[in-house]
C-alpha cells in the first residue's frame, strides 16, 4: 500500500515549532511520508507545496490566533486548484467558538493541546484512505 503523504506547515509569523516538529516525527514514525515546510509559509506556499508533493493531507500548526485568516485562505486555494480531496487538519490553540466555523469551511480535524499523537495518526490514516488507495 502506498505511503500517506502529509505536508506539515507553520503558517503566519509565529516560530513556536515544537508541536509541528513533534507531530511531523510521529507521523513519520507511523510510516507516513512527511514534508515539513519550515516556518512562515503563506497559504499560497503551503498549497503549492501540497500540490507539488501530491500530498494526501495538510497539517497546519497555528498557535498565534491567526487561524481564522489563514485556514479559510488555504481552503479557498485548495478549491481553486481542484484539490478538495486533500485532508486538512489543524493543531494548536483554537478557541472553542471557532471550531464550528472551521468545520464548516471543510477542516475535518482540529487538535487542541494534549491530544495524543496516536489519535492524530489514526485520524489522518482513516481520512486519507480513499485518496491514497485511489
Amino acid at each position, binding site marked *: 500500500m502506498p505511503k500517506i503523504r502529509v505536508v506539515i506547515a507553520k503558517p503566519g*509569523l509565529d516560530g513556536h515549532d515544537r508541536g509541528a516538529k513533534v507531530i*511531523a516525527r510521529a507521523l513519520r514514525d507511523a510510516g507516513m511520508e512527511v514534508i515539513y*515546510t519550515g*516556518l512562515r509559509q*503563506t497559504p499560497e506556499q503551503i498549497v503549492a507545496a501540497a500540490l507539488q508533493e501530491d500530498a494526501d493531507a495538510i497539517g497546519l500548526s497555528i498557535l498565534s490566533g491567526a*487561524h481564522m485568516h489563514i485556514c479559510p485562505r488555504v481552503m479557498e486555494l485548495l478549491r481553486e486548484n481542484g484539490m478538495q480531496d486533500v485532508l486538512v487538519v489543524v493543531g494548536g490553540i483554537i478557541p472553542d467558538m471557532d471550531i464550528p466555523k472551521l468545520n464548516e469551511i471543510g477542516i475535518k480535524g482540529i487538535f487542541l493541546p494534549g491530544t495524543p499523537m496516536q489519535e492524530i495518526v489514526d485520524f489522518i490514516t482513516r481520512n486519507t484512505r480513499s485518496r491514497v488507495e485511489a
Partner: protein
Amino acid sequence: MVTNMKTAAPGATASKERRGSFTTISGRPINQLYTPQDVAALDYERDLADPGTFPYTRGIHSAGYRGKLWTMRQFAGFGTPEETNRRYKQLLKAGGTGLSVAFDLPTLMGRDPDHELSLGEVGKCGVNVTSLADMETLFDGIDLGAITTSMTINSPASMLFAMYLVVAEQQGVAWDCLSGTIQNDILKEFIAQKEYIYPPRPSMRLITDVFAFCAERVPRWNTISVSGYHIREAGATAAQELAFTLRDGIEYVQYGVDAGLDVDAFAPRLSFFFNSHSDFFEEIAKYRAARRIWAHVMRDRFKAKSPRSWQLRFHTQTAGVSLTAQQPYNNVVRTALQALAAVLGGTQSLHTNSLDEALALPTEEAATLALRTQQIIAHETGVANIVDPLGGSYFVEKLTSDLEEEALAYFDTIDRMGGMVAAIEKGYPQREIAESAYKFQQRVEERDKIIVGVNEFVSEQDEPIGILYIDESAAERQLSKLKELRRTRDNVGVRGALDALKDGARGSANTMPLLIDAVRAYATVGEMCDALREVWGEYEETPII
C-alpha cells in the same frame, strides 16, 4: 557507592517500589535516598559559600528576600497600545511592582501592520507597537522614572528600546535614571523561538551596540536577558536549558570583549531568564547551579574583576508548556508550585502564568489571580524569611552538582564546535532540543509521565471558562493610525534618518544613536527593520525534525 537498590535498613523487609525507575521530568534517574556520601566531594566555602559570597550558589544577596522581595512582574500586552495601557495601570494598582511588555508577532518580527505576513496577527499575541506614537500611548500616565520595565523583544530590540528612551526623554526622565530590561537575546531565537530577522553575525552586532551604548548612556539598564525560557518551552531538558543559556551568555560576553569593551563595563548589566517547570527540586537545583557556573565563567574564563560581573541575576517565568487546556483550574496549582520553586531558587523577579493560557491570552481576572499566587508565596508561606532554605539538602546539593557537570560537558562540545554561533549554524542545539521534545512526548503517550487531566484523571466534559477573545478591531485601528502617521509626519526626515541608518550599518558606527534619530522622526518598526534587511539580508533556517 550508594545505589537506589540498597537503601532499606538492614533487617527491614525491602518494600517493593511502585515502578521500575524514578526519573525527573527531564528523564534524570533519581535515587530513593541521598546521604552525606552523595555530597562528600563538596567543600562549603569553595562550592557553596554563604549567600552573597562567591560562587553565589546560595544566592547573590546576603539577606536574600529579607532585604527586598523579588519583583512581581507580570508579562502583559494585547490589542492596541490604548488597551494595554489600561491593563498596565490595573496591574500596578493591584500591587504589581514592574511592567513587562508582550508585543505582537508583527512587532516581534519587525513588520508593520500593513505587511502581508501581518494578516490576522496584529494585536493577537501581544500589543502592536508600530511607531513612537504607539510607545507614547503605551506608557501614557505611567512615570518611567518610578517603575522598571521589561520588554520582551529580540530582533528589533534596539528599535523598541530607542522608542522607550525617547518617551522617557519626553517625560523628562533622564536616561541614567531608567531601569529595566530588554530581552535582546537573538541566540535563543535561532535555537528555539525562531523570531529572527538577520543572520547571526549582524544580529550579534546589534546586541554589542546596545551593550556599548548603555554602558555609557543608560547605565542602570539590563541590556540583555539571556533566556533559557524558550529553550525549555521548545522541549529542552533542565540541563539543556541551563547549558545552552549559559553558553549563550558566554557567547555574548565574548562578542562584547571582541568588540573592544571592558568586560566589567558591560557584564554587570547582563541578566538571565529561566523557566520554572514542574519538577520541583530539579528546578531549584538548576538555579543554584546557574549561579555557581556563571560566577566561575566570569571570574576564571573572562577574568572579570568586579563581583557584580560574577553575580548571575535572573527572571523566572513558570512553564507555559506545562499548562493544560483540559481542566484549566489545575493550572493554578501547577503555577503555584513552579513559582515556589523559583522563589526557593532565589529568583530576582517572577512572572506567574494565568490559568487560561493554554487557551488564549489571559483575562484580567486570571492575570490577577496569577499575581495573587505570588503575593501568597511572599507574604503567607514564610519561605521568604530565610535565604536558600534547601542549601545543604543532600539531594538538592547532589542535583546541583550533577546539573553543573552536565552543563559543563555541553560547554566543551560547543567550544569544540567553535562557539554557539557556529553550533547554531550546524543545527546542534536545535537537534538536541527536538530530540528531547520527542522523547518527552513519547513518555507522555506511554503514560510513563502522567499529566493530570490529560493522560490520567481525565474528565468527561470540562466546564468551559471565559476567555479573552481578540477580534480584528485592533488591527483596523492600528492600520488606520499607521496610514494617518504616514500622511502627517515629515517623510523627508524619515527617509534621511533611514539612509543614515543604512550607512551606519554598512560601516562600523554604533546603530543605537542612528535608531534613536529614526524613532524621533517617527519611522516605523517595519521601516527601520527593512532598512537593515537591505544591508544585512534575512536569515533562513534549515528545518530539523
